[in-house]
């Protein structure tokens, strides 16, 4: 069985021999860009869905500046076992889900202002958190000790909640790890959380819906919310989000260790997001034993190609570039075609070339033609708005 991992720096994907990857957190060195990053392997036994980490060493006061070098954690993080409603097991490595449940792409890769859930999305009902059975199992509200910052880290990917927990626990914060939107809301309410860090495409209740519920709850008026990218593709050009849907700040996955603790503190202490204008990322590696590092470094293998789980996104990107090229080189035809309703006829040859080309780069099992068509329609819609043309084709 293969263990899949992705380099957060260059996006290279690796398929590792599962038996050689140690359980827990390990460090992996990318053979392409030499970036060292964290991977997490779960045990074969089911883990509780809610895992709470507390600082393993004397708790630093929240005001303390986090150490510039990530300290080592010699033992696994402490997990608080809380009885939860049964949930299906999750894959060891969380790739963007492609199941029936709609996934909202809400990463900084996306222009947040244009975000909307898919039309056919079965948006989980906000009534879910009121399910008595779930409520009864919720932990009682907890007293904050020594003014410690209480954080809920909600992400469907356990390696992300692990990284968040790791970073914030070292900064003296109390972190509860959650993997589902409904549970995230419950935990925020029951613990009167100071900060909730939300993945946007959480199962059962989208992150932005959790955000709405928190905002509507007067008892959580002090709670600050940080959105985390649900999909992060460093190879893709990103723009700053223009809307955070009521959240106070956002974080990209690769800045969890070097930026998140400061972001959380800044929100709690000042109520405002951290100004990162002059932020320079520092090199942090996640804490694992040297032995585990050697073990994992030894099993670096060739990047995945044909089975690349992100192949779909790459294919879509390629489609966008092809269409962008076609339109760029045919500006006059586009204008004429849009006005006369003949745009597809005028571009027929170029579209055919585009299709032939994308077929040479995209595996057959992916619907390259559909991607190209969608990209073309999207660009044409934009162009129609630019040209103020109202007709549809």
């Amino acid at each position, binding site marked *: 069985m293969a263990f899949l991992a992705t380099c957060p720096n260059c996006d290279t994907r690796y398929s590792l021999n599962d038996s050689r990857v140690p359980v827990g957190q390990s460090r992996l060195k990318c053979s392409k860009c030499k970036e060292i990053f964290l991977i997490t392997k779960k045990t074969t036994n089911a883990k509780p869905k809610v895992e709470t980490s507390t600082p393993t060493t004397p708790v630093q006061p929240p005001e303390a500046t986090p150490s510039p070098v990530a300290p080592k954690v010699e033992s696994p993080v402490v997990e608080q076992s809380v009885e939860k409603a049964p949930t299906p097991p999750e894959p060891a490595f969380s790739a963007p889900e492609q199941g029936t449940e709609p996934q909202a792409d809400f990463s900084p890769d996306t222009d947040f202002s244009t975000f909307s859930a898919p039309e056919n999305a079965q948006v989980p009902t906000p009534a879910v958190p009121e399910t008595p059975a779930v409520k009864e199992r919720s932990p009682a509200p907890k007293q904050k000790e020594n003014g410690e910052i209480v954080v809920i880290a909600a992400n469907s990917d356990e390696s992300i909640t692990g990284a968040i927990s790791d970073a914030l626990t070292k900064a003296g914060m109390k972190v509860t790890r959650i993997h589902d939107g409904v549970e995230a809301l419950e935990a925020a309410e029951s613990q009167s959380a100071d900060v909730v860090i939300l993945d946007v495409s959480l199962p059962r209740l989208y992150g932005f819906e959790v955000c709405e519920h928190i905002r509507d709850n007067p008892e959580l008026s002090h709670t600050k919310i940080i959105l985390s990218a649900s999909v992060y593709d460093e190879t893709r050009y990103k723009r700053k989000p223009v809307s955070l849907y009521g959240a106070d700040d956002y974080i990209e996955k690769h800045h969890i260790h070097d930026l998140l603790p400061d972001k959380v503190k800044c929100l709690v202490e000042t109520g405002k997001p951290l100004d990162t204008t002059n932020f320079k990322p520092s090199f942090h590696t996640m804490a694992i034993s040297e032995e585990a590092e050697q073990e994992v470094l030894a099993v670096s293998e060739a990047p995945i190609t044909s089975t690349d789980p992100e192949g779909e996104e790459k294919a879509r990107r390629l489609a966008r570039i092809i269409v962008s090229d076609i339109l760029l080189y045919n500006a006059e035809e586009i204008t004429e075609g849009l006005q006369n309703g003949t745009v597809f006829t005028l571009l027929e040859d170029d579209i055919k070339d585009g299709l032939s*080309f994308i077929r040479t780069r995209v595996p057959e099992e992916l619907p390259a033609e559909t991607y190209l068509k969608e990209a073309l329609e999207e660009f044409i819609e934009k162009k129609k708005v630019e040209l103020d043309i109202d007709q549809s084709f």
Partner: protein
Amino acid sequence: MSFINYSAREINCKIVYYGPGLCGKTSNLNVIYKKTNPDSKGKMISLATETERTLFFDFLPLALGDIKGFKTRFHLYTVPGQIFYDASRKLILKGVDGIVFVADSQVERMDANMESLDNMELNLEEHGLDIKKVPYVIQYNKRDMDDIVPVEELRKVLNPNGVPDFEACAMDGTGVFETLKLVVKLVLAELKKGA
């Protein structure tokens, strides 16, 4: 790889202008051609269509000074930027001595810039060349357009290694010669290393 003609005492160097479609590669060469002393330049060959699409390449020879008694002649090439013509791009990179990556500063072309940059690195690798070792400069073109990406952001995305870079507006000539002079300087420095 520079070609040395001992009988003519000439060193021929190849500089390739690389970048996504319609980013301004040919415009760079046009400006250089128009503003260069007629004695220093050869005929500019442009295999382009009436729609300005470079189907194969543009080529411009330039004479620029001597090294140890050898005349240096620079051959400037552009590649077809459109994503379809990868085979041509790969061919033109063969034996390259210096590269100018012309980036289109417009927001809507950022994906294309990144794709072109990745493609360039791959094609160089296929020729056994490492972008970190080839004389290389970046030009952020079309700075006069409306919806453009700030230079700091362009640097972050397209120039992580911090190679020399320039802002330009190739249509009116801004930044074109600065870019050329620096890449030529880097190529000459490389030649002198091996001289």
